[in-house]
């Protein structure tokens, strides 16, 4: 017992020291060739872009993108080591990746640790994957549902490629978290190759203190600050734990890795197969506070000449306890929507919501009646109605 606590302390000290390592600031700068409009006060720039992390790459020249290098990393995992990790090889074949996709890249995609003996982590792969994902997901939603209101569009993007969605995908892929500390690995004589196929995001310090009861989850200091800031602004349901975030990052990085090895076409196919194929319940995302007012405003925006009319189409049992009314909402002679309700008011609201939904959820088709192509497809053609006009303010 004594021996164990001593080693634990020692390991903790080492990882703390590593955490304190400072990253040198970039030294060399180049002057751009042409003068840039200097009238703009650059002091305000920081207010727009508050992204100063200590984790920055060094470069020779700011525009020489090949020269950027992270000094915290010294090496990538050798392919020979990676190929000896059973979970890594299993994941590779489970995802049906081609042999061009190296195992070392897949292992790197699963590593989130900044300080792991100089082993490169998935920082860059994650950003690459994120950009690829956001383009293909946005393109799909913007073209397939051009009239979605912006808040719904954003929620839809989030439900396809947000961390929580990617966490589910990562779980489906069978990615495992590396939960044992160095000491545990040593004591149980675990093969050193196993960890290269697992998701590594827990610091050695957290792994050491990983002795809570099952079902009890201890928050990290970052998670606590996140939770506090979330409580002030949004509901606590928007809280994302480190584990969810780590899975999301790994999935994004795997997609980024696909681009580096196999190019964009294959990556697009992969995103279509794994992300865009998931069913999206768009109709459940809507919530109207003042539907009638919104519809009137919408018709105004669309330059409809005639006023909105609500008309009773059919009714039965007005004097009974279970009356039913069928109401239509019209613009001139065009019926925009229809609703059924047990009171005229209910039927009217349902009719208006029906009209709004059929407008917002419109999906264009091409002249042959096929689903419309997205801009990254071959033989893409512009169609009328593919560009959303924007929502209305109520």
């Amino acid at each position, binding site marked *: 017992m004594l021996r164990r606590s001593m080693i634990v302390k020692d390991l903790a000290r080492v990882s703390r020291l590593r955490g304190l390592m400072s990253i040198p600031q970039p030294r060399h700068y180049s002057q751009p060739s042409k003068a840039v409009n200097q009238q703009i006060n650059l002091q305000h720039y920081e207010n727009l872009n508050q992204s100063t992390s200590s984790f920055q790459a060094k470069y020779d020249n700011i525009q020489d993108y090949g020269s950027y290098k992270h000094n915290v990393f010294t090496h990538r995992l050798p392919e020979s080591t990676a190929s000896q990790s059973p979970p890594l090889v299993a994941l590779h074949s489970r995802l049906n990746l081609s042999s061009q996709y190296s195992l070392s890249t897949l292992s790197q995609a699963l590593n989130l640790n900044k300080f792991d003996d100089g082993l490169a982590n998935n920082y860059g792969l994650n950003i*690459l994957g994120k950009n690829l994902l956001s383009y293909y997901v946005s393109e799909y939603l913007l073209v397939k549902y051009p009239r979605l209101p912006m808040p719904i569009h954003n929620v839809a993007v989030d439900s396809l490629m947000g961390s929580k969605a990617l966490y589910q995908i990562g779980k489906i892929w069978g990615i495992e978290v590396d939960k044992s500390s160095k000491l545990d690995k040593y004591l149980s004589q675990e093969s050193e190759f196993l960890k290269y196929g697992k998701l590594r995001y827990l610091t050695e310090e957290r792994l050491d203190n990983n002795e809570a009861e099952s079902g009890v989850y201890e928050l990290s200091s970052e998670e606590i600050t996140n939770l506090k800031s979330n409580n002030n602004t949004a509901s606590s349901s928007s809280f994302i734990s480190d584990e969810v975030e780590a899975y999301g990052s790994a999935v994004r990085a795997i997609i980024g890795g696909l681009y580096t090895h196999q190019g964009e076409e294959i990556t697009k196919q992969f995103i279509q197969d794994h992300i865009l194929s998931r069913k999206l319940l768009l109709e459940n995302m809507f919530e109207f506070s003042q539907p009638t007012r919104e519809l009137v405003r919408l018709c105004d925006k669309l330059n409809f000449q005639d006023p909105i009319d609500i008309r009773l189409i059919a009714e039965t049992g007005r004097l009974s306890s279970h009356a039913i009314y069928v109401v239509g909402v019209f613009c001139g002679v065009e019926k925009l929507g229809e609703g059924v309700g047990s009171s005229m008011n209910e039927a009217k609201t349902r009719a208006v919501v029906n009209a709004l939904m059929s407008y917002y959820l419109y999906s264009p088709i091409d002249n042959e009646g096929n689903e419309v192509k997205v801009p990254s497809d071959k033989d893409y053609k512009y169609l009328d109605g593919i560009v959303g006009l924007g929502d209305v303010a109520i």
Partner: protein
Amino acid sequence: MSSIRQLVIPNRLIGLKSGISCTSYIPVRNIYLHKGSRVAGLKRDPKEAFTTYNGYQYELSESNLKPIKEFLTQKYHISDELILQVLTHKSFGNGIKPYNEKLSAMGSKILSLFFTKFVVNKPSNNELAINGKNLDVLGSPMAKELGGRYALGVFAKNHNLNSIMFWKSSSHTVGFLNSGELKVSAQMMYALIGAVTLSHGKLVAEEFIQEKILNSNDTPLEDIASTVVESNIERKRKQKETV
């Protein structure tokens, strides 16, 4: 001076079913269109409501579309209606005219992806590069700023693309940045790229970014971005020194 206008509602036939009398009834109503400051409940004169603070009338006129048309050239031509939509911000006319929010969502994504690929595919001798692609550059301030709002806003101003934009600020007089003109200009640029993408497809849009924005003859985007990033680093260093 306020004006009284007549609005004629289209003909409605009365007694059509009976087939006896078929006189057309033309109701006429007078609508007062208010000019000047907003008064609750009064309809504003569209001529005044749809004019920008610097006097441009919202319409499909050659003069309104000219700066964008010249920038796009025939190769990347987009329809006139789309150009007008690109130039219109959500803030204009309470969002009642087609505006550029969706277009800019498209444009900003393709631009980020383009610059990500652009920086990653530069030749590198970094031993951490994956398959020759140096990913260490991603996440650096420069890589972020390349497709960033600040650089694009300045780009639009330098190329005089934002001279005619349909938008509204709470105070137009407080300068390029504080009035929000930078944000609106950047959004207009994203929308322009988005409109080219939706009109011509992704490949042509990438050519467009490469040719017109990256390799522009007059202050290309890279120079604007690097100036912004360097002055930011410089200022931070000075701040540190004074502390």
